[in-house]
């Protein structure tokens, strides 16, 4: 067996799903350590999400996540994005937890946009398509966000879901990184998502461009996405 084959085989055994044959004791221990590292990264990157996970079924949910989503990096941010995506895809996720995870990932994205210099400079005079900027997110909640996040932070029971569609905008140019959008801004952002943002109110666009929520993309222009 070549070194490449041996490494491929060992990594497959170390990252095998929960039901795989345990193998020798040292391999089982290495598997357990690998999973513990993954949980540690999640706790580091998504502290509120991990606090908000209901105790009943928590271990099973985390084990299932590790079974279906591979580990890709030492950096906790990748585990955080992967877990947030997993929660969002669950058919019956625990209430609010996917929103809390999306919020924590959105904050990381807003921070990292400046690390990688890719929150594009708004160019309000340019003509082109408006898109959500890299590093910007819309996070939807099914109760008031401050109540959901406050309860998670304090370790209290999360509020009941309500019928109202709550939303926070997160972007590197927003003071404090997050704020609720106005009704006009929501219409604009919905239009952007549908790809028909030309009908927009110019004042809302200027504000969202200034806060790096939106970016105006001119096809073929240097520096555009």
């Amino acid at each position, binding site marked *: 067996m070549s070194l490449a084959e041996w490494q491929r085989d*060992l990594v497959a055994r170390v990252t095998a799903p929960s039901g795989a044959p345990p193998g020798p004791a040292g391999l089982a221990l290495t598997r357990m350590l690998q999973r513990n590292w993954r949980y540690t990264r999640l706790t580091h990157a998504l502290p509120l999400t991990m606090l908000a996970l209901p105790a009943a079924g928590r271990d099973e949910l985390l084990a299932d996540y590790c079974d279906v989503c591979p580990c890709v990096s030492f950096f906790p941010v990748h585990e955080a994005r992967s877990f947030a995506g997993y929660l969002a895809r669950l058919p019956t996720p625990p209430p609010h937890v996917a929103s809390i995870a999306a919020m924590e990932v959105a904050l990381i994205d807003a921070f990292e946009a400046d690390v990688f210099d890719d929150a594009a400079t708004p160019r309000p005079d340019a003509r082109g398509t408006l898109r959500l900027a890299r590093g910007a997110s819309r996070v939807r909640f099914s109760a008031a966000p401050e109540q959901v996040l406050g309860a998670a932070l304090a370790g209290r029971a999360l509020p009941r879901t309500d019928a109202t569609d709550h939303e926070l905008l997160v972007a590197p140019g927003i003071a404090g990184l997050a704020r609720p959008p106005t009704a006009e801004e929501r219409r604009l952002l919905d239009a952007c998502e549908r790809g028909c943002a030309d009908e927009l109110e110019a004042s809302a666009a200027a504000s969202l461009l200034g806060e790096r929520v939106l970016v105006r993309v001119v096809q073929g222009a240097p520096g555009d996405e």
Partner: protein
Amino acid sequence: MRPTPPALGVGLSCASDEPALWEAVAGHLDYVEVTPEHLCRERIVGARRHMRYAPDALAATLARCEGLPIVVHGVELSIGSACGWNAAYIDILDQLWSARPFAWHSEHLGFLLAPGDAPGEVRYAGVPLPLPTTDEALDLVAPRAAALVQRYPVPFLLENGVHYLPHLPGARDEVEFLNALTERSGCDLLLDLFNFHCNAQNHGFDALEALSRLRLDRVVEIHVAGGVTHDGYLLDAHSGAVPAAVWSLVDHVVARAPRLAGITFEILDGAAERLGAAGMLEQIARARESWRLRPAAAQEVVRVAC
């Protein structure tokens, strides 16, 4: 010719940014060990990884180490991967060298990245894994280590790892592999004596006998740490005080390693806060007792006495 490392003394590897802790221990340290990846963010685009220093993180760390030399201890190079090492690590190492030259740099002997099932696919292990002690592994790692020896005018060290897997392929034992690697590549050794102690306990060999065969003239740095026992295995956890058995190994090696330049106490940030300033100072003081056993220190005492 290998660069001669400066004899620094006792250092600390700790990512805690607790100001009170650093204030208490900084005056008792001779150097600080920095892990560049802890100061970075990573983006993965296709199969390529990019790392950038987070705003203020590098500046804050260098400010904390103001007046002290730094040494570098990387975690993400994956020098033993058959599918290629992580070039993003070299980029951030170059940037750190430009910002603040280091006395030496080191990495783990092992791998994190492995070939996937599809051509060009790379899988991440999620936990550091050991290399077999085969000729093929030696042929892979030695030129990579030699390239890092040449890259900066300071020593490059490889660290012996801890592992729990039975029966790694290869005719050599760990010591024979390390000796062959230093000989072939020109790199030096970061001898992690807690890892060495763990492997001896878990795999049933005599640590002192094994150390008697190791090229101690290639040891530039020693790591010490604390760990925990789980299911009969001793685990490398960087979780607190160094066990007495490990200090005994340290004393043994220090007296026999002529190029030793530093003893570094490794501890995770949360564990450091639990151990507290007094506990940290106790470990640092114990490391200094060992440091005084080095042959050069004995010669200094003789010179002073004369």
